[in-house]
């Protein structure tokens, strides 16, 4: 358990056997991000890590109470198998926490559950989240996100233009995000 101003973070499992992860370090990363992003105080965040798979899926399974589910590969150092990557963890958890913040914010609207969001829209939301994370000073892989966005929307100039809008945006709504994703796909 790690406590920063405004959030208590718990990580399961508390002890890892298949990977060399430290639950305390993961909790500390999440608590720091929570504070930097400016999420509401007085919450308890739970991170459920599935260490049985090296894959890297990560999503929000509950907004209230906030729960993130991550496969162990999502936090792994690409140079050191089974070891935690701090910048990689900040990237993944930070992206999820920005999206969690959007879900908590009534002005954003009501997106469906993660699993019900099409890959096109999901990638647009990722760009919006990671763009904001980069402006907080966390390392980002802008070209990687552009490639992901292009794979989902197409390789065309209007797609890149929408990507730039999403990356630089600060106050989108769910409806606005859907419109931008649609515009990238159809060019209108």
């Amino acid at each position: 358990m790690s406590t920063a101003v405004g959030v208590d973070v718990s990580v399961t499992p508390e002890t890892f056997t298949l990977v060399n992860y430290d639950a305390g370090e993961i909790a500390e990363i999440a608590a720091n991000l929570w504070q930097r992003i400016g999420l509401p105080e007085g919450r308890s965040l739970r991170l459920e890590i599935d260490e049985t798979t090296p894959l890297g899926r990560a999503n929000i399974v509950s907004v209230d109470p906030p729960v993130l589910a991550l496969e162990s590969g999502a936090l792994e150092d690409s140079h050191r198998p089974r070891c935690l990557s701090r910048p990689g963890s900040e990237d993944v958890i930070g992206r999820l926490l920005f999206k969690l913040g959007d879900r908590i914010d009534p002005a954003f609207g009501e997106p469906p559950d993660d699993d019900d969001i099409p890959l096109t829209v999901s990638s647009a939301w990722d760009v919006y989240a990671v763009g904001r994370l980069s402006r907080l000073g966390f390392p980002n892989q802008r070209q990687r996100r552009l490639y992901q966005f292009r794979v989902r929307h197409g390789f065309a100039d209007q797609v890149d233009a929408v990507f730039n809008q999403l990356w630089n945006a600060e106050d989108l709504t769910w409806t606005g995000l859907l419109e931008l994703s649609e515009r990238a796909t159809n060019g209108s």
Partner: protein
Amino acid sequence: MRKSFPVEDLARDDRFVRVPITERMQDGRQVPREAQGSRRNGGRLTPDRPDAPDAARLLMHGIFVGEVQALEGAGRTCWDFDTTGGGTVGNTSAPEVPFQLKLDMARQCWDEARHTEISCKLSAHMGTELGEFAEATFLYEAACNPDPVLRLTGVNRALEGLAIDVFNTMREFGQICGDPVLEFCEDWMLADEVTHVKMGSDWLRRLTEKDPERRERALEFQRVVDQLFSLGGFRGEEDDSPVRLARRFRELAGFETSEIDELADIARDARAQAEDMSRQNREAAAQQVPT
């Protein structure tokens, strides 16, 4: 310049990190794909996989380091063997090779150098930094055999054969995504790989024409390398194999249908072995859980 260059001495700058294959095989997390139970468990590299862009980036980086090692391997084959015989590779006397074979290897070096440059640019296009992922060196290790026939069989038929399968997979991925850069580059590199495999098939036949025992040793070496390169079922003919055997291109490269069938069997065995090892690793890890 010395003959026979050990893998440990390959030149790399500090961006590159090597992870031994044994390290990966000890990973108890390698659960069978069927058991993963999410919508991503169809392992084939297609855009409808949620992780497809990152899986493609990872594969592209693997192609990049594979090209570097293929260049190093073909370069060594140019140098390690003489046209007059009498040299040594490591502690073993090296058989002579025809000058034309050395020329073919020189041409291959030229191709691999071009592929390396293309792979660098494709990696940048996909948002990958060189060295972002760990490097496995088992490709080069197949290029260290002291017998040129075994080396060519391991490199040009097994390693370059894997390249055919991988490039075809990436070419199809680019095609489906509408990525003209990826599709075009992979298509051109694929054409070169077919030529490289054809070289291996031709030299295997020519150099062992009067030595069936040596040919059998070479084919056995190829089977061993192919099992390794099946990467626990990563390459195979199952529906969920991320990289599929490219039958048509392998036929163009001189593979008999029976050889491709055998390769599919080898890939299935490799997958079964990998899943068995993974199960054992998980059981061992479970016994270490503190109570």
